């Protein structure tokens, strides 16, 4: 299977490798490399927990209050901020571990695929361990020997950001 070979369908192993590598980049704070995974018109959305989890991934951030509504310009600023020692909420940095499971390929096309998965992110900081859990939607398109991200959504199953008060890292 070579890069851009349209004859070979996108398979689960490739997608999971991509998601697991993305998680590793986030957990090791290799955020510039993580930005390189994105398409130029990418979008990162995190709805609020008061959305019903059944509908959360469909929320329209233009009409409903969300937690994150980043186009690439804002996403780059987010990464720049997180790498700045004056981002006090992440200095010292959270220790995170992004776990990805229940990966399902939905709407698989020749050159792109939507991926639904579950996440559990553990975060240790300031004497506390917080758990963020929910579901991801990744809209991926083939790129070079791998993929790039067109859209990334993370919908929390929590009812509120409690006991953790914030999402100060990349979920």
């Amino acid at each position, binding site marked *: 299977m070579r890069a851009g070979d349209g004859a070979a369908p996108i398979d689960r192993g490739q997608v999971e490798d991509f998601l697991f590598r993305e998680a590793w980049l986030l957990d090791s704070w290799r955020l510039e490399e993580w930005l390189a995974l994105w398409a130029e018109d990418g979008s990162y959305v995190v709805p609020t927990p008061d959305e019903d989890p059944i509908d959360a991934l469909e929320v329209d951030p233009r009409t409903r209050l969300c937690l994150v509504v980043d186009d690439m310009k804002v996403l780059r600023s987010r990464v720049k901020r997180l790498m700045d020692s004056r981002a006090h909420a992440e200095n010292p940095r959270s220790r995170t571990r992004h776990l990805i499971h229940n990966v399902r390929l939905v709407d698989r096309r020749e050159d792109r695929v939507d991926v639904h998965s579950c996440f559990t992110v553990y975060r240790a900081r300031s004497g506390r361990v917080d758990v963020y859990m929910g579901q991801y939607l990744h809209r991926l398109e083939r790129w070079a020997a791998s993929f790039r991200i067109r859209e990334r959504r993370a919908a929390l199953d929590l009812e509120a950001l409690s006991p953790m008060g*914030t999402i100060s890292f990349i979920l």
Partner: protein
Amino acid sequence: MIVDAGRRQWIRDEAAGGRFLVDRTAFTDPAVLELERQSVFAHCWLYVGHESEVPEPGDFVTRSVGMRPIILIRDLAGELRVLFNACTHEGSLVCRVARGQARALQCFFHGWTFDTRGELVGIPGSDGYGGSFDPADYGLRRPGKVDSYRGFVFMNPDAQAPDLPEYLGRACEFLDLVVEESDGGMEVVPGSHRYSTQANWKLLAMNSIDGYHVVTAHATYLEYLRDMGIDTSGGWKVGRRYDLGRGHIAAEFYAKWARPVARWCSQFPESVRPRIEARRAELGRRHGEERAHRIADVDRNLFVFPNLVVNDHSAVLIRTFDPLASDRLEVSTWALAPVDEDPDLRALRLANYVTFWGPAGFATPDDVEALETAQRAICAEGGGFTDVSKGAQRERDADRQSNTDELQLRAFWRAWQGWMDTCPQGGQA
């Protein structure tokens, strides 16, 4: 600190001489929270919600206000009501969902049923009741007073409290400036931010009205604004701070970010500029230039004691916060926006809101870090004082004040101490 027999003072007000101190046990002592429950949260007007959250008969939302679970409901006749969300039988929560639509409210436990006014209209096995038992006595309980000011709904547990307009006083002026941004009225955008913070609620009250921390705590947010092409040099042009009495505070200032109500800047796409300029011109025609300037061109922060913030910057925020414990609070925030707002402006407004005020944005997490580390460290000394002396000697000289002075914080604490002084036990803790 005991000043005279039975009267406890947590503040040392020597502002004229340059110092104002707050006893740090105000943030840590559970007995203080109990006194606040009996005074501040039993006799002040507390923000419940916005009328637009329950637009149709039968609409309701549930939440905690002043540490009490309530239902905000529009009854079937269209009247707004606030009911305590506790069954009059054995106290279960009657409404166990965050929002919905109902023709009646039924407690799941024994089936007692209340209408949308809170009246008890159904008791299974009602033949077991008689004599002095009268269902009319068993309606869902209500706060002493409920009232609404231009869409903002408040409750006061105390039926003898002054009326809402009297309590708000000059805060009304600043609510008016927000509401008048839109001829068709303002509405809460669907969705809310609900997050907790491991800190005493008064640390957030101070943080909400403080300008001193912006340059340092929010250095990266200011950097982000510069990256978006917004001029932040020299900080915001100094505006005015207002001590509105009763612990209410307002501040006006002149930032350079875009305001969807009527100020375009390069932060927004060029395509929306004509729409924003048209809105600004319309405001001028409707209100006259002087008032339109105040509505459209000026940013403002409003604090209504004890726990309501309304901020009007590049979006409009409503924030309220409740104590959960001495060292824990929960915040709820909503975005307020013009009804029938242009969809592109609405989208830009929400993105701005989320990036600044949201708990996953570029500013609020640093505030939460500050408050939580303060709560952890405040007990280090086993006592000690928090200092809010900045600008103390120029409190009465508006021309010499700085927007980083702590005048507003001293007004908050003076009002708070006044409420502590009303406690029946004489403030003993």
